């Protein structure tokens, strides 16, 4: 389970980093509020995972100081594209936690995966990407 939690944590940390970049390129109030809320949510999940791994006496790999973004984020369009990609990635990070957990812990993982998938859909709508949904959120492409 530590391995899966560690992977989910890596996704959350990457998301927190990415939203720092994304936020700079958004200017409408709606976009900015959405990005802030998302970043806050990812910080909470990160804290949960760090706490859980600590309970399990597992050491998570230290988060990298920086990330190489898949492309240059220069404007709203590339910022939204990255936001979509980041949320899809977070959902994919959480899905493998489901089979290795049960009860309340699995419910927490499912909630985290679902929230990321819902944010990905919201970003797709804001970016006018269709379809805004997918059949298997969290399943790698």
């Amino acid at each position, binding site marked *: 389970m530590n391995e899966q939690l560690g992977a989910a944590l890596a996704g959350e940390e990457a998301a927190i980093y990415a939203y720092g970049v994304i936020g700079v390129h958004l200017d409408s109030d709606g976009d900015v509020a959405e990005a802030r809320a998302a970043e806050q949510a990812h910080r909470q999940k990160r804290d949960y995972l760090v706490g859980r791994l600590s309970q399990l006496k597992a050491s998570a790999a230290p988060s990298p100081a920086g990330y190489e973004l898949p492309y240059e984020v220069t404007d709203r369009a590339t910022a939204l594209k990255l936001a979509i990609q980041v949320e899809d990635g977070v959902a994919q990070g959480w*899905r493998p936690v*489901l*089979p290795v957990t049960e*009860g309340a812990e699995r*419910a927490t993982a*499912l909630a985290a995966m*679902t929230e990321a*998938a*819902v944010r990905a859909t919201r970003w797709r709508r804001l970016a006018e990407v269709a379809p805004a949904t997918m059949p298997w959120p969290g399943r790698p492409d």
Partner: protein
Amino acid sequence: MVLTGAVREKWEIGHSRRWVLGTASAVGAAALTGCGLLDDDEPEPPKAPDPLEPLLAEALALATAYDQAVVSQPGLRTRLAPLAEDHRTHAAEMSRLIGRPLASAPVASASAGPATTVAALRQAEQAAQKTAVAACKVAAPDRAGLVGSIAASRATHAEALR
């Protein structure tokens, strides 16, 4: 438990190979059940309904509800057709896992009913998400990811209908 090998084959009927080979625990449970069956020397009791059945029925009902909505309001096709398609994809995968062809699946029309407004569809998605969340909580490990993705997908549908 020495009978595990034979029992496993028996259990495999109606299930996809991937499902059976997927987890050690599932095979273990199957073996336990099988031991009982062989000891009793009685005809196999009717199989309990697969826990995915209610989710499958819901997916088919939702797909039908979207179809009905598009028929009565063709302008909504672009928005609703992809959601119906997601449900059909879910239904196909679940029926494969259950080991029953989709054609013979009962179509629950009662719950779909007159859900033809976007608001009603959204409500139906939210209710269906709850069913899937509850199912995910108690799902066997080899199905937790699948059911979890279905729950998340239904949540994104509700979001897309806002």
